[in-house]
């Protein structure tokens, strides 16, 4: 099953956190930053699977290799779209390649809902983001993988807000001067 779905941007700021088990807020944050650390250093050619972050690696060592499956999260899959990282943490009952497709469906669904989705859309409509995920995964179990059904399911819950007009593309807000959000964090 899927243990958690995370979305954060290039600077490690969370945009969506969904843990399918109850976890202390502080532990959640630590996990996010550990995964971000892992993912931020990945080169271009690298595969989309992460080694387990230290928090999870410790717990997985005790698992018995006798059974083919167990409850321990053993797979961290990610995809990187523009400014955002999409992360799925799962146990061995999920197929790694299928999870990659699942993330793709998720992003496509968001794109269908927002029309050319970008990080801003997700920041301002994080409820919709959750709703979309809720149409695909319930309690860690994938319940829908078909794009149109996911989109329909979200739309049935009410109209999806567009991004605020004055935040439009190439909009007036100009906080520019930072590339990629790199150097910013070092000073903080």
């Amino acid at each position, binding site marked *: 099953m899927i243990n958690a779905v995370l979305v954060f941007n290039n600077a490690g700021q969370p945009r969506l956190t969904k843990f399918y*088990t109850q976890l*202390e807020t502080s532990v959640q944050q630590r996990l996010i930053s550990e995964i971000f*650390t892992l993912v*931020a250093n990945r080169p271009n050619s690298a595969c989309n699977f992460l080694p387990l972050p230290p928090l999870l690696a*410790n717990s997985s060592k005790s698992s018995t290799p006798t059974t083919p499956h167990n409850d321990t999260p053993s797979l961290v899959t990610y995809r990187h779209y523009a400014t955002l990282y999409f992360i799925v943490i799962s146990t061995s009952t999920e197929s790694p390649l299928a999870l990659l497709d699942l993330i793709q469906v998720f992003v496509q669904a968001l794109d269908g809902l927002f029309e050319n989705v970008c990080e801003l859309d997700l920041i301002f409509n994080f409820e919709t983001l959750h709703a979309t995920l809720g*149409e695909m995964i319930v*309690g860690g*179990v*994938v319940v829908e993988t078909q794009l149109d059904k996911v989109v329909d*399911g979200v739309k049935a819950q009410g109209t999806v807000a567009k991004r605020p007009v004055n935040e439009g593309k190439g909009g007036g807000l100009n906080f520019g001067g930072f590339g990629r959000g790199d150097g910013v964090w070092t000073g903080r």
Partner: protein
Amino acid sequence: MFEKSLYDLIRGLRNHKGKEKEYINDSIKECRKEIRSNDMDLKSTALMKLTYLEMFGHDMSWASFNVLEVMSSPKYRHKRTGYLAAVQSFRRDTEVLMLAENQLKKDISSPTPTVISLPLGAIPHVINPSMANSVLSDLLPRLTHSHPVIRKKTVATLYRLALVYPETLRPAWPKIKERLQDDNENPSVTAAIVNVVCELGWRRPQDFLPLAPRLFDLLVEGGNNWMAIKLIKLFATLTPVEPRLIKKLLPPLTKIIRETGAMSLLYECINGIIQGGILEAVEGTAEGDEVARLCVGKLRGMMVIEGDANLKYVALLAFDKIVRSHPYLVAQQQDVILECIDDPDISIRMRALDLVVGMVNSENLTAIVGRLMRQLRNAPIASATDGPNNDRVRNTGVVPYAEEDDSDAEESLQPHEQRSDQPPPLPEDYRVSVIRRILDMCSRDTYSNITDFEWYLDVLIQLVRVSPATKAVSAAEEDDIEQTDDIGAGIGRELQNVAVRVKSVRSEAVDTAQSLVFVDKRDQMFPSSGNGGQGVLEYAGWLVGEYAIYLSSPEPVLNSLLHSTSVQLPSRTLAVYLQAIPKVFSSLASNDQISWTPERQTLMSLLMARIIHFLEPLSTHPSLEVQERAVEYLELMRLAAEAATGTATGSEHGDFTDPPLLLTQALPALFTAAELNPVARGAQHKVPVPEDLDLDTPINPNLQFLLSQAELEGFETDEDDVYAAYIEPTGSYTETGGQVSVSAAERLDAPQKETASYQNAAVEEEYLDPDIIARRKAERKERYKDDPFYIDPDADKGSGAVTPLSKIVRENNSNTDIDIDSIPIMDLNLENRGPSPAGNHRTRSPRKVPKRVEIMGDETLGPPDESSNRDDIVSPRHNQSQKAKKGLLQVDSSGLGSLSLDDGDDNNRRKLTRLEVERREAEEAEMRKALAEVERKRLEMQRESERIAVKEEAVVVRKKKKKVRKADIGGEEGEGEGEGAGGADADADADADAAPVKKKKKKKVGPEGETEGDDTAAKKKKKKKRRVVGLNGGNE
């Protein structure tokens, strides 16, 4: 009043760049106000903002009651916000969870599908066992809801219910199965059910065998790759319990492998064939060979395909599973797999590393280890300050700071995944894990793969040099830290193991340990930066002590052990050093064949003085272990020193004079009683307890008296006797009595020519030694003479064949020291001391012929048991601490393992359970009746008591009640809260149609047929409780 929407909050954050912390705190303060408002819009907006901030780690647990309020709003928009907040913020210990139950039940029964979806999505996050049972009855009808979306979500929710309370699966399973068997069911629902069954399946595969035909049909029908993947995964767990499935599955699986265009499906097919044991089952048949060839061929294809790292990764995963059962199949792919060890991608490297550990054998061990060593050596060791990138988030924590680059955030996510492209640094933990694996591979099966132990010793030395630095620990917490985690210690353990187990290389191993212990060689032997590898000293220290007779130069070793820097070592290492010092000393001093000349006497006295000088400050060391050993050996040394000075010396060239017995007999006897052999873990337990062993009778009934007497008398007299016994070698025992021990510092100050003689002695030792050194070197030279990789620093003089490689290195050498990094291989000559006199060559069998090395196994009694597996060689550290830590992110489904779901065809045990279920159901029905009655009575009484106690007295209770009412949550919960916790609470929460667990348990304890009594008892209890409240009210 100014109100902020979520939009305003986010905008505000952007506009307060640099001051986000204050801004957030202000916003949370505002939210606290707003959330108390009566305006539901305002409330829900505030909650939304809090939920947004929660994502960044800002606690909102204080708002859990307000979450409940918003959840109960009739407006869908509010509800959705409330449910999202509940999912994101409720934790196991959230108190209002009990109150949420009714709201959940109510919304599940809503006529609007979108409303039903909300609790369905939320229940998996908030459910607890007592709630599970009560919610179940509302969930089950949703399985047949007209809307497929509701049906599929219900299935998933039911699964999570079963996880927290397995019994709920019993009534739910038949209905889920019905959905699955229904051919006309919506494919989405079927797929969801398959997903759930796949999760359930691996726990108890036998229960799901009856579904096999249906699942098989679904697989063959095809159409949905997602579902096919899950089906294959499910079948892989079913085939081991039902081998007949294999024959059936093979054709469709091979068909998919041949035809499918979806890589994921192809991979899972192969994976399923491997994991389901299909490969083994059909082994030997023509068909089986073909399948194996097909699978391995496809996997190889995945590895070779240019540019797709993901396929490479999963192929390695699959190989890892094959390697256990079919090592030869994997060995054929060795070339591509070994390639992956050097892959720039850490994830792939890790997988490859896992894999090669499984495929190693005596032939490829050297090559694989060589590859890994090269990798370690070529990457510089990162010091702690090296990685600001790595630590930045950890140190600062994430703050939702202003979006400084909007242009970025606006970048469309659609086109393609984007990836940065700097090469990754070699992370520390990877380095550690490589070293661990090397040790693991080499020590596998008690070193069965190693043919050349001297090579292994060199590898170990090299590993010390590339060890990453361990975190510096202050002396205070040093003891708490699990030092076994240190990789240096791991290497040390190996060194120790080799020395103990392999007698033929013991002297080499001790030599290695000796070179590690030398203080002046430390720069050479250890990483230049950080404290990497220092853990090895603990074991090296032990080795030089325990096998002191093998030492080629014991005196420098002793000097190094006594070096002033030793005091700064970790206390564990220091304790080992303390133990080693007298051992080495005793090997130096104990020779009774050499006459006790004045020279020898001064030499010994000097050595002992230095030891005493070293030990004295340690007798107040903070570590108890160090302190105790220091004090013990300090006394022993003083004793020995006195004996040495007190024993008359013979003349330089005269007759043989016996050295003091304390040095030649007593001291060695302490350490050389029996040789240490490896003992299997757990062997100690098997030592039979002697029958006549009586631990209960006191050894001396007069102990108290003796002790007090001893205290009175003091030590003087006894001591003298002891002294006498040891010191008197030839009867010439002089003036011990009055002598007070002199401090070591004083002794060192004494104007004697000791320093000179010490120097002399050292030179002499060096002088004596070279034949040993030379022999070793010569052996090496001889053995490696046609090894192109062997580097001989003084090949000019030596007789070794000059290879191109060695020539290059030699040229380098003439200018500078050996530049380790420029040497293309890992096989280093680590002997670099002293000139090599020609001659003294001893021929040994050349390297070509693999030596038969005798490796000692563990000693044990009786048959070896499981706990004595060889896993203790490298790392005995897992298990204890980590098992406790297990739970992170993990959903525990172990409860499902004991829940039988099969259809009860003929199973006896099954019938029993069915009986049990029936009985339980009957019980529950009765219980429900009783509880309903209790509830009715209680409400009546409550109303009554409320009527009586309206006024001033029950203010607190009433206040709370009011709130709850407003939240529109059933009155009985409000009551429960008002009353506070208590046994009655469980009853209060009982619902009309399902009994709570707590009650049921109570019920089960009681004997059969007591239901009636229980019932009335419960009533009475209620009444009593009521009365108390009423009484309080009346009194006040």
